């Protein structure tokens, strides 16, 4: 569907002019520059002798570098995952409402373009934007830590890309809400609510808080539809070899993709039958 790719390219072009996006790129770059300038690691024969940040010592123990940096890498991967998701929700909430705005949508729908292509194009454009931002941020921090410590681990990039996977579900829900109601605020609220549900509520252990029987069964049934974002955040640590890859994580990743696909299908279904 080349028209969907044209729409995705148009969305990227629009994103380039957004202050939010420029701000994100600037923030990542500045954080990288600041860390590169202030972080000083002394690595001798694979052992981390000393680490200084802003001139202050951070721990004095002599430890194997890969072991010593494990919490740093997995923490940074988690940070990339969470901030990427939050930033994505806030920065991308008005793309769909703008494309679907009165005066623009009629023009687009009168062009030789299928309605589904328009929805898929918006979705792909936002995903491309999210992947590009994640890669940029992930690579900047990976290179930085690699140059400083001599340890090259792609777990930060993997953490950032795990954020994209989670965001694919969050944005699909935001897109579907924008098709029903053309509101950036509502779209953003849906994204934050889903993020909260998937990070805090969709935990099996919370079922114990409900009375046994119907309430617990209802809770379990409802949260089984919500992607477990808290679990996906582990992908970075798994990619770094710090944690094992288990079936639960794979099921969660597959479930997230299915949730995203279902939301996009819902958006297309509503969009196809709507008058503008």
């Amino acid at each position, binding site marked *: 569907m080349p028209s969907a790719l044209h*729409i995705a390219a148009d969305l990227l*072009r*629009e994103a380039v002019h957004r202050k939010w996006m420029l701000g994100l790129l600037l923030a990542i770059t500045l954080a990288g520059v600041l860390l590169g300038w202030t972080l000083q690691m002394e690595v001798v024969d694979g052992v981390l002798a000393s680490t200084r940040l802003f001139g202050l010592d951070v721990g004095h123990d002599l430890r194997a570098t890969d072991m010593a940096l494990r919490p740093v890498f997995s923490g940074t991967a988690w940070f990339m995952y969470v901030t990427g998701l939050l930033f994505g929700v806030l920065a991308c909430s008005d793309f769909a409402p703008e494309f679907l705005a*009165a005066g*623009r949508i009629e*023009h687009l729908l*009168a062009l030789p373009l*299928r309605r589904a292509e328009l929805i898929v194009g918006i979705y792909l454009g936002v995903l491309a934007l999210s992947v590009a931002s994640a890669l940029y941020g992930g690579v900047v921090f990976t290179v930085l830590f690699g140059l400083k410590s001599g340890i090259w681990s792609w777990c930060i990039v993997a953490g950032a890309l795990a954020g994209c996977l989670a965001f694919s579900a969050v944005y699909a829900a935001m897109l579907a809400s924008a098709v029903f109601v053309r509101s950036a605020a509502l779209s953003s609220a849906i994204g934050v609510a889903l993020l909260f549900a998937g990070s805090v509520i969709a935990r099996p252990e919370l079922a114990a808080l409900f009375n046994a029987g119907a309430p617990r069964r209802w809770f379990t049934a409802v949260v089984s539809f919500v992607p477990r974002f808290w679990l996906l955040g582990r992908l970075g640590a798994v990619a770094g070899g710090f944690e094992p890859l288990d079936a639960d994580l794979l099921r969660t990743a597959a479930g997230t993709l299915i949730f995203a696909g279902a939301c996009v299908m819902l958006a297309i279904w509503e969009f196809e039958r709507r008058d*503008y």
Partner: protein
Amino acid sequence: MVDALVKDYGKRRHPKRALDSVSLRVPAGSAFGLIGPNGAGKTTLLKTLLGVVAPSAGAVQVLGGSPADLGVRKRIGYLPERLQLPTAWTALGFLHSVARLKHASRADAEQQLQRVGLGNEGHARIATFSKGMRQRLGLGAALIGAPDLLVLDEPTDGIDPKGRADVRSILAQERARGATLFLNSHLLSETERICDQVGILVSGRLLRSGATLELCGNPSSWRVRFEAGTDTKQLQRLGFAPTSVAQVFVCTDCDVAELNARLAKARGQGALVSELVPEMRDLEAVLLELMGPADA
């Protein structure tokens, strides 16, 4: 071609009927103007032609096919009433995007930009454009791909008089190329000047449609200018009523035969006719007459 078209909006129990059994045929190559009061359903009819709005009942055929057919939509150029443009883009960037989606060339986009008088503004941000410039840009986008049908909703809205003349000239060129124009404009004088076919839509019903001359024609009133020195009392006795303009008289309620009989008598008495103009009704008069006093 539109046949028994019905469009209902809103809930199933209490729908609001926007179009009520509208049937219409627009001959290929003609310039059709849709007129009517606010809320008559004009924009809904336009959107139905484009497949943007689905009819509740009836049939729509455009350029021999369904508006849902991408091949048909490729042959249509559309300018919405309140076109919202991506303000961060440049004018040329916007037209290139439309050209890509219409499978037209970039050169075509650049040519249309020149044509609508924005040739020097190609690299300017749309955010800096006035309303009239945005309207021109929208027209340029509609013209990309040499469409066989141009559907224009208020094309001269916000454009200055010089710009309106330019738009009329472009539309005349498009007609000469063989394109069909479907125009919706509140400016009835514009519709009269551009369109040879007119449809009058009131409260969702197509009350009248046909050639503009037929709708405004059948004059029974004539404006006659006589040379100076003509006996005015004599003319008044023959049924020519004086007007506020010297030497100009009006002959009302008389058909062509009656007019010629009166003019023959006047000339027999020495009067010299220097100008004779039928007093045609304009579209506004036709519209107001059809709407009736309550709607007007």
